[in-house]
C-alpha cells in the first residue's frame, strides 16, 4: 500500500514538473517545488553526516576490525562539524561586527577554513593525484594494442597527448604551417581536428542515445513501471 502511494507521489511529481515547462502559470509551482527539492538536498547532506556517525559508532562499539580508524573518522567529523556550526574563530563580518554569528563559516582565518585548507584540500587533492601513478603503471602493464580497435584508440591517445603539449609542436614542426593541404597533419592541428570532428560526432551520437535512455526511464517512473528507486538510498553526488 505505502509503496503504491510512493509510486503515485513520484509519478504525479514528475508529470507536474513536465507540465510546468509548457504551462506558464505553473512556473511558480515549479519554483516552489524546487525550493523543497533544494531543502531536501541540504537535509540529505545532514543525513549523510548522521549515517556516517551511526556507522562509525557501530564499528567502535562492536570493536570491529579497524575500529581505531572509525574513532579517528568520528573525532574528525565531530570536530569539523563543531567548529563549523559554532563558527569558531571566524572573523566578524564588516556589516555586523557585533554579531557573534555574522561572519561566513568558512572565511579565511577561521577554524573551519583551517581544516578545509590544511586537512581537506591536501588529502583529497593527493588522493586524486594518485591516479596519475596508477595510470602510468596501467600504461605499461595493461594497455595492449591487441586488435585494430585498441590500436586506433591508442594512436589517437598518442596524438592527443602529444598534440596538447609542446611535444607535438616540436615533433612535427617540419611540416609547413602555411600550406593548408598538409598543415593539418601537424600534431597540434591533428588533435584539434580529432576533437572537432571525431569526438564531436562520436559524443553527439552517444549523448543523443543517453538522452533517449533518460527519457525512457522518466516515462517509466511517471507511469509507475520503474520502482527500483524505492529500494534505494538518497543523497547527492559529485564527481
Amino acid at each position, binding site marked *: 500500500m505505502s509503496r503504491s502511494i510512493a509510486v503515485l507521489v513520484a509519478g504525479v511529481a514528475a508529470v507536474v514538473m513536465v507540465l510546468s515547462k509548457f504551462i506558464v502559470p505553473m*512556473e511558480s509551482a*515549479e*519554483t516552489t517545488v*524546487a*525550493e523543497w*527539492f*533544494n531543502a531536501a*538536498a*541540504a537535509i540529505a*547532506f545532514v543525513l549523510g553526516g548522521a549515517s556516517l556517525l551511526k556507522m562509525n559508532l557501530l564499528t567502535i562499539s562492536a570493536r570491529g576490525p579497524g575500529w581505531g580508524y572509525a574513532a579517528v573518522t568520528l573525532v574528525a567529523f565531530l570536530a569539523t562539524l563543531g567548529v563549523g556550526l559554532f563558527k569558531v574563530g571566524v572573523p566578524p*563580518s564588516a*556589516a*555586523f561586527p557585533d554579531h557573534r554569528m*555574522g561572519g*561566513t563559516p*568558512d*572565511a*579565511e582565518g577561521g577554524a573551519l*577554513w583551517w581544516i*578545509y*585548507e590544511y586537512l*581537506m*584540500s591536501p588529502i*583529497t*587533492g593527493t*588522493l*586524486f*593525484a594518485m591516479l*596519475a*601513478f596508477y595510470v*602510468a*603503471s596501467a*600504461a*605499461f*602493464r*595493461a*594497455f*595492449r*594494442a591487441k586488435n585494430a580497435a585498441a590500436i586506433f584508440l*591508442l594512436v589517437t*591517445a*598518442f596524438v592527443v*597527448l*602529444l598534440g*596538447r*603539449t*609542446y*611535444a607535438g*609542436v616540436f615533433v612535427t614542426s617540419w611540416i609547413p604551417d602555411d600550406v593548408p593541404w598538409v598543415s593539418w597533419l601537424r600534431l*597540434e592541428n591533428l588533435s*584539434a581536428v580529432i*576533437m572537432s570532428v571525431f*569526438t*564531436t560526432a562520436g*559524443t553527439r551520437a552517444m*549523448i543523443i542515445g543517453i538522452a533517449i535512455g533518460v527519457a525512457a526511464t522518466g516515462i517509466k517512473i511517471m507511469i509507475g513501471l520503474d520502482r527500483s528507486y524505492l529500494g534505494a538510498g538518497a543523497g*547527492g*553526488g*559529485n*564527481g
Partner: protein
Amino acid sequence: MATHAGHASIFARLDRIDRRWIFLAMFVAVAAPILWVGVTGKTFPEAPTPAVQGAFDAVESLPSGARVLVSMDFDPASAGELQPMATAIVRHCALRGHRICTMTLWPAGGPIIDGTMQDVLGDRPDYRYGEHWVNLGYRAGFEGVMKQMNSRVSLAYATDVRQTPLERIPMLEGITGIADFDLLVSISAGYAGAKEWVQYSVSPTLTGSKPLRFVAGSTGVQTPQLIPYYPNQMAGILGAIKGAAEYEYLVNEAVRKADPSAIVPAKFQEAQRRMAPQLFGHVLMVALIVLGNVVFFGLRNREARA
C-alpha cells in the same frame, strides 16, 4: 642465439618490474620540470584552439560593465586543474571592467571563490564589493538551484554570503532571472556543473528571444563530453590544464598588447608553467605504452617460438 636470449631476458625482467619504479618515473617526470620551471621561470608559447578563442571572445566582446555570472562548481580535489582557469577568466573579466557575480553548486566551493577573488582583486581597490563584484556563495540543490535561478535569482539566494539582501546589492539591479546576465561561466569538475548548466539554464533560452551566452571550463575527464555542445549551446570551452594555459596566454598577450611595458605577475601564469610537467608526463605515458607493448609482444613471440 645469445643476443636473442639476452633480449628475451630483458623482456622478462621488464615484464616483472616492480611497479613502484614506474611510480617513481612518473614522479620524476612531473617533479623535475616543476623545479626547472620554478628556477628559470620559462614557459612555452601557446596557440589557442578555436574553443578557447571562442571563450576568450565571449568575454572580450562584452561591453565594459557587462554582468557575468561565474559558477565555480568544483572542490579542492580538482583545484589543480581548474583553479588556473577560474583565476584567468575572473582576471579577464576584471581587466575588461565587467561586473562579476560568483556562486557555487558544490559545498566545498566557497573557499575557492574567496581565494580566487583575493588573488585577482586583492590589488584592485577600484573593484568594490557590491558594485563591481558580489559573491552569492553556495546553495544546496544542484538542478533545483538552476531551476530557481532561471525564474528569479533571489529565490535561490535571498542574500549574498555577507548577508546583504539581493535587492540592496547595486550590481544586481535589474537582474531577475539568470538570462539577464550577459554571460554565464561554469568552471566545473562534474555533477552538478557545466553539463547541467547547458541542459537546465542555457538550452531553454535558445528558443526564446534572448539566448544566454555560456562558457565552460572543465576537467580533462569531463571535456570530451561537453564538446558536442560547442559552438551551438556554448560559446567556448576551456578543456583541462591546456585550455587554461591557452586562455592565460590570450589574456596575458592582450595585457602586453595594451601596454608593452606591462609585467605579468607570476601568479597569472600558473597554467602556462604547468605545461612543462604536462609535457614530460605525457611523453612518459606514451613511452610506457609503447614499451609495455614491445615487452608484451616480444614475450609472446618468444613463447610462440618456444
